[in-house]
């Protein structure tokens, strides 16, 4: 039961530390680190086995790269290419070269210096993105620039891994590569590919290319029908299992061939990023990735050498500060070159000045591959952690000190988004489709969810963007962007699910207006009580139209038929409103039935009467003056 007691300790640490860290504004990554520190060096609960756990947890990184690939949209990337290649690319390359130079100046071998430079060039996506999002700075020029750089860095992980692999394979033998044999099977693959080692070089290359091509082709053509088949079974856990199977399978395949599993899953993610199942895959993999990654940071924290920290605190801290000042300078210059001004430039340079969590992963890999010395890794791990720790302080500095003072100039015209605000629609059946078509014809930003894979596919064929998933699942709704939505439209055909969805959305997203499809008048009351702003009976207008056309067919003048219909609708609405209180107070009881009958009788009277009665709307319009009026 050692496994269970270990699991208990780790989970407890995470559950205690992370919410606390979030409260203090430090972010969850730091929370995990600190938790690790506490249960490791501080309390000594966790010891040497932490490194074993770390290998296991590295799989979280593989999953993360899958999700990164999934989130990427090639079209969006193409649009942002100038920023990505220019701003992002220059930041990565420039910082790498700068740090490598410093490393060489300090006497490191060029391979180590290069590795160190690349690793330290990356910033913390988790901390920066989260903060920018929370404070609403993401939409500013500075925020957008930061986002581009972070995105580039995410993508850059792949070539970095490749370069590190090359450095390792080129047989540097710089340091004791004893750890290599322990096997970093997951993120590294430094020793993987033994199966191919026997083959000639060109054949190896060919097989590798074939595998990559295979992933792309399979992803594009095979996976969709497979997912549809699984989805039709409507067993959620099987879909999750399939997603995991996919990720693990690719990781194994890549490892077999000697490539980085993260690269493979990243590719698979990119290929699947425009499929209908993207949201579902995200929802399913995200929790696993979150936990494994958290576990990873925990183990990193547990592995921190505190003796080192307390031994040479000044060195460590000054290294950290030096790192941040250096990165800040590079970023500041880049920001100037790319025409960021004032507060935006400060936000950009301050926000990204730290080294990121990916450093821990890459350090581990570099260590195992013998590219970096263990002491160096220990030191730099501390330095990176400290830089991350200091980041919230920098944001506070920006918020309180710089933002208010520096005049925000109109450096760049903000991207004008033509869409009229975001609408999330749940349910793309007969009802939802009509609503969606009308909204999209008016350039609204529509996100659509449906749980029938057949519908999703068919709609995809005619060009409508629909995402597969059960709309009653909170995580799917969240992933659909309900946080930033203006409007939520519940268009499911299941009466009870409708009420459930409305209830959940009303409670969780109080700022979103809710329109709901109602089965009948009683469902209207139910939905309103659940929090819908407007509930519309699904067949009412359709039936009314047929009624109106029927009147015309029977010889009633079209304009009169129109007026009569309008009156009917108005009266029905009056009845709906009048009976609401009665219904809410006791449901369909005798008093309700009586009241309803009373209303119906009034309606018949209204429709029947020919009197030019002034109190009644129906006959009132265009009434000629009485014959006896001689004043004219």
């Amino acid at each position, binding site marked *: 039961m050692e496994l269970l007691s270990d699991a208990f300790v780790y989970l407890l640490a995470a559950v205690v530390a992370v919410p606390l860290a979030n409260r203090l504004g430090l972010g969850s990554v730091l929370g995990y680190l600190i938790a690790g520190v506490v249960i490791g060096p501080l309390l000594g609960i966790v010891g040497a086995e932490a490194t074993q756990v770390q290998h296991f947890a590295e799989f979280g990184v593989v999953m993360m790269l899958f999700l990164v690939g999934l989130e990427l949209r090639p079209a969006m990337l193409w649009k942002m290419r100038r920023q990505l290649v220019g701003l992002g690319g220059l930041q990565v390359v420039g910082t790498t070269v700068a740090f490598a130079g410093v490393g060489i100046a300090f006497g490191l071998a060029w391979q180590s210096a290069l590795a160190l430079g690349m690793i330290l060039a990356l910033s913390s996506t988790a901390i920066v993105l989260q903060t920018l999002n929370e404070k609403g700075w993401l939409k500013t020029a500075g925020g957008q620039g930061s986002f581009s750089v972070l995105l580039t860095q995410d993508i850059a992980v792949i070539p970095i891994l490749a370069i590190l692999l090359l450095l390792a394979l080129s047989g540097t033998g710089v340091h004791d590569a004893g750890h290599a044999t322990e096997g970093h099977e997951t993120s590294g693959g430094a020793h993987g590919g033994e199966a191919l080692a026997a083959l000639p070089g060109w054949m190896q290359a060919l097989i590798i290319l074939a595998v990559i091509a295979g992933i792309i082709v399979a992803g594009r053509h095979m996976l969709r029908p497979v997912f549809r088949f699984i989805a039709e079974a409507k067993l959620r856990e099987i879909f999750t299992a399939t997603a995991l199977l996919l990720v693990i399978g690719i990781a194994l395949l890549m490892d077999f061939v000697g490539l980085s599993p993260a690269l493979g899953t990243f590719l698979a993610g990119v290929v699947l990023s425009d499929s209908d199942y993207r949201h579902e895959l995200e929802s399913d993999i995200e929790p696993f990735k979150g936990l494994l990654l958290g576990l990873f940071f925990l183990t990193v924290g547990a592995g921190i050498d505190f003796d080192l920290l307390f031994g040479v605190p000044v060195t460590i801290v000054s290294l950290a500060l030096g790192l941040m000042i250096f990165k800040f300078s590079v970023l500041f210059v880049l920001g100037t070159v790319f025409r960021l001004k004032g507060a935006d430039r400060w936000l950009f340079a301050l926000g990204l000045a730290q080294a990121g969590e990916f450093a821990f992963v890459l350090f581990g890999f570099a260590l195992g591959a013998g590219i970096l010395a263990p002491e160096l890794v220990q030191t730099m791990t501390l330095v990176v952690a400290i830089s991350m720790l200091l980041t919230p302080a920098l944001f506070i500095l920006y918020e309180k000190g710089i933002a208010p003072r520096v005049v925000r100039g109109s450096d760049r015209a903000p991207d004008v988004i033509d869409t009229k605000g975001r609408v999330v629609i749940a349910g793309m059946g007969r009802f939802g489709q009509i609503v969606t078509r009308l909204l999209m014809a008016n350039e609204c930003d529509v996100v659509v969810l449906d749980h029938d894979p057949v519908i999703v596919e068919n709609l995809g064929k005619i060009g409508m963007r629909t995402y597969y998933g059960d709309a009653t699942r909170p995580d799917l709704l969240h992933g659909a962007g309900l946080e930033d939505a203006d409007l939520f439209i519940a268009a499911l055909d299941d009466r009870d699910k409708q009420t459930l969805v409305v209830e959940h959305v009303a409670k969780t997203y109080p700022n979103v207006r809710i329109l709901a499809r109602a089965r009948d008048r009683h469902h209207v009351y139910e939905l309103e009580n659940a929090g819908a702003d407007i509930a519309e009976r699904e067949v009412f207008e359709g039936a009314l139209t047929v009624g109106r056309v029927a009147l015309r067919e029977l010889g009633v*003048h*079209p*304009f*009169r*038929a*129109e007026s009569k219909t309008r009156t009917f609708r108005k009266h029905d609405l009056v009845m709906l409103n009048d009976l609401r209180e009665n219904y809410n107070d006791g449901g369909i009881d005798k008093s309700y039935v009586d009241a309803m009958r009373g209303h119906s009788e009034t309606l018949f009277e209204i429709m029947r009467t020919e009197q030019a009665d002034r109190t009644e709307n129906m006959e009132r*319009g*265009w009434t*000629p*003056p009485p*014959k006896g009026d001689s004043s*004219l």
Partner: protein
Amino acid sequence: MKVLVLFAHPRPDRSEVNRPLFDTARSIAGVDAVDLYAEYPDFGIDVLKEQRRLLTHDVIIFQHPFYWYSAPAIVKEWQDLVLEHGFAYGHDGHALNGKITMNAITTGGRHDAYSAGGFNHIELRSLLAPFEKTADLCRMRYLAPFTLFGAGRAVEEGRLDTHVAAYGDLLKALVSDRLKLEKAAAAAVLTDALDGFVHEGEAA
């Protein structure tokens, strides 16, 4: 000439005068009579369709009760949407050049009410200035309004049939091009007494 009668009455089921007038118009060869409220009960005027109609006719008659010194609302909607710049007016808008247009109306007030000394203190034709000026801008010929005064008592006073018959004569005269257009354009008003306005000749 091809005659188009655009009929506008929101409650023809209650109409004593306009309804029979419209029925008459429909029965005459060479006349196309359109019930605007029936065709567009939701006011969704099909602009292209209406413009095509205008192109294929030579005489455009608005037949309606004189609601509040004007026409029922759908006529205004029609004017606002159909008479587009570049079609009906403006330097490229010549579609209606030279066509004839007029109003055929029924009023509540008596004839003498529509005079300088009468109740309304204005001539009827002056009150129809918006229609006349619209016609001028579209380079059309505006004729005096064919009118039934005191329409509210026409049936009781036995004036309906004469007026309906006169309307028929007017339409037939227009179809066979026997109306004295200059005289009709210069007159203050056209009533049942049409004799001086129609060339004798072919039988009606």
